[in-house]
């Protein structure tokens, strides 16, 4: 159909012109819904929050833009420990997710055979229940007198985490360890799925070739599999780290007063104290922190493709 239209000599020049214009516009029409979505639900709120962050006032008298950039500095000096904690907890959770997720993704991609689909469903299945319920379930799992904590205590695991300052005495709940555990659990599928896709599309003949060239399995992994799966590793770590650093549910339910993350501060400033400028400023600082951490990471990871 297209071919005939362009080839037809009888067509009037105006029609051809219209058609080619239309054709040029097609990509933009295709982009339109996405762009509208981003403008309405991302760009506008962002601008609104940026404006809020430099306002001063109160709920009763209203807030006015006074270009009060001091809010940023105050927020940073007051709540820097929360930022450090957020990066630390989210980072630890991301590393744990990678350590747990990589072998599993590898197994599903290469060794699972006909169990592959079932295993994938099992990875995603927890998502059918609410985030809140899943997190609350960990309160039962990690309960002070529960079997998990008993075992961890008996084998001396808690002695190590006590030394690291991750736990306090013989309990896990209301400690940093509980928060990191919750984060790891909740974001694990975000790590596994991209890892799986990048491993799954790898050509298995490359492994055979490596074997033919006398590479040991460990060398094959190091020189072939791992480098080829780097896009999956990078996108998995980003999909885990970025939302985890802004999470507040895990710290709220599994943590204590000294494990609150920056998400908790934003929530409390916004809803409890009704200090909208500080909440907005904290959000922007968090965005900046995440952007910096991610930039450094991507540069180090040295990969071009993210998917």
């Amino acid at each position, binding site marked *: *159909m*297209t071919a005939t239209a362009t080839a037809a000599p009888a067509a009037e020049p105006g029609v051809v012109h219209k*058609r080619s214009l*239309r*054709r040029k516009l*097609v*990509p933009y029409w*295709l982009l339109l819904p996405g762009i509208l979505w981003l403008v309405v639900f991302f*760009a506008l709120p962002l*601008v*609104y929050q*940026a*404006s809020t962050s*430099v*306002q001063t*006032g*109160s*709920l*009763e*008298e*209203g*807030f*006015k*833009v006074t270009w009060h950039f001091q809010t940023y500095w105050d927020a940073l000096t007051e709540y820097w420990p*929360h930022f450090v904690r957020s990066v630390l907890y989210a980072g630890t959770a991301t590393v744990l997710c990678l350590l747990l997720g990589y072998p599993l993704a590898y197994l599903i991609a290469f060794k699972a055979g006909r169990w592959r689909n079932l295993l994938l469903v099992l990875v995603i299945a927890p998502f059918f229940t609410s985030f809140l319920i899943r997190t*609350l379930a960990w*309160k*039962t799992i990690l*309960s*002070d*007198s529960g079997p998990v904590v008993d075992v961890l205590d008996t084998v001396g695991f808690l002695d190590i985490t006590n030394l690291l300052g991750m736990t*306090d*005495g013989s*309990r896990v*709940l*209301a400690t940093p360890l509980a928060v990191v555990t919750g984060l790891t659990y909740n974001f694990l599928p975000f790590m596994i799925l991209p890892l799986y896709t990048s491993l799954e599309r790898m050509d298995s003949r490359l492994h055979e070739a490596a074997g033919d060239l006398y590479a040991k399995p460990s060398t094959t992994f190091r020189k072939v599999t791992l480098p080829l799966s780097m896009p999956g590793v990078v996108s998995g770590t980003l999909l885990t780290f970025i939302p985890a650093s802004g999470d507040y549910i895990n710290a709220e339910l599994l*943590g*204590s*007063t*000294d*494990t*609150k993350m920056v998400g908790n*501060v934003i*929530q*409390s*400033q*916004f*809803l*409890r*104290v*009704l*200090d*909208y400028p500080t909440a907005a400023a904290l959000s922007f600082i968090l965005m900046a922190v995440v*952007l910096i951490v991610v930039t450094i990471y*991507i540069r180090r990871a040295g*990969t*071009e*493709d*993210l*998917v």
Partner: protein
Amino acid sequence: MDRNESEGLYDLSRAQVAAIQRTLTNGRGALTRRSVLRASGVGALSVGGLAALTGCGIPPAKREGGAQSSDDRSDQEKTLSFSNWTEYMDISEDEKSRPTLTEFTKRTGIKVKYTEDINDNVEFFGKIQPQLAAGQDTGRDLISVTDWLAGRMIRLGWAQKLDASLLPNAFANLSPQFRSPDWDPGRAYSYPWTGISTVIAYNSKATGGKKVDSVTQLLDDPSLKGRVGFLTEMRDTVGMTLLDIGKDPGDFTDADYDAAIGRLQKGVDKKQIRRFTGNDYTSDLDKGDLAACLAWAGDVIQLQAGNPDIKYAIPAAGYITSSDNLLVPAQARHQKNATRLIDYYYEPPVAARLAAYINYVCPVEGVLPELAKIDPALANNTLIIPDKAMAAKSNSFRSLTAKEEKAYEEKFAKLIGA
């Protein structure tokens, strides 16, 4: 992509489709490190530029006078939209109907759309605030919020004055204890749905049979270290602590407030306090992860039904009583219907059925004989119907000015870690 589909739908040649796909996956448009960095750079720049354009700000939340004058459609529309907390309404055995509400509809012809969409005062305020601040209808004719939020809404002009002539039962039967809170003198705007007593609860198995009956013990007893809970409701936690240090939560100064916060901070610093909790303390206490904590009496009664180890104590220094209050938000269209529902729940037989189910303090006088008919044990429970000795120890937290509220909440937020 299928050839026919691509040509038919978008009038594109296969080559063009391929070209678009290429740009999205590995051309200049591909999602790579550089493009992400570039995009965020551009994003940051445009945000900077646009922010310069916004001189908008957030308008004052306070609205003068406008609250009362919304046109009331109660006579034309026999409906009512009622938002309440979860587990705050009696429900039939088969969990399919709410008997007291059904009877209200039968008697008045007013259909009630009952929603349990309030879980947390601060969150609920965040939810309705944009509409109310803009002078719009929230779609709710009747809501139930705790004292301080009810006070704030009245202060902001976001609640409608109730028509006293439609409230004969409520006027006659409201318990003296709840008659004139300082934030709504004479109950012009609100009526309590339930009273909430904040007491000390403990799991006797977890404390080794030891009784816990004061905030001092919660904060200092070494045998409870790391297993003590306080509430994230500032007025309950600070109020109970004020009582413990001999101050009156109904009349205290900034210095008293700071002293109470300092006292609690010590408990946090020496790791005596495990957590500050919302409603989730109930499961912690039930399991024994919390040995003792501040608790809401209604929860304690419900927990006791399933776990005999749960005990409660009323501190000698007194306890805090607050209430959840029914009020009609500004611009709501069915004020009259809402008012009739409030009055209905102040009829002692109805109030008794409600109290028997939800187990919170009943704010209705004369409910005792009715409750005894349903369940004599509940009628004797001073947590539901306070006796004289119990009522004498009850204290309420005074209302705060907007400025105090912000300063106090900020200090409290710091105490609880965020």
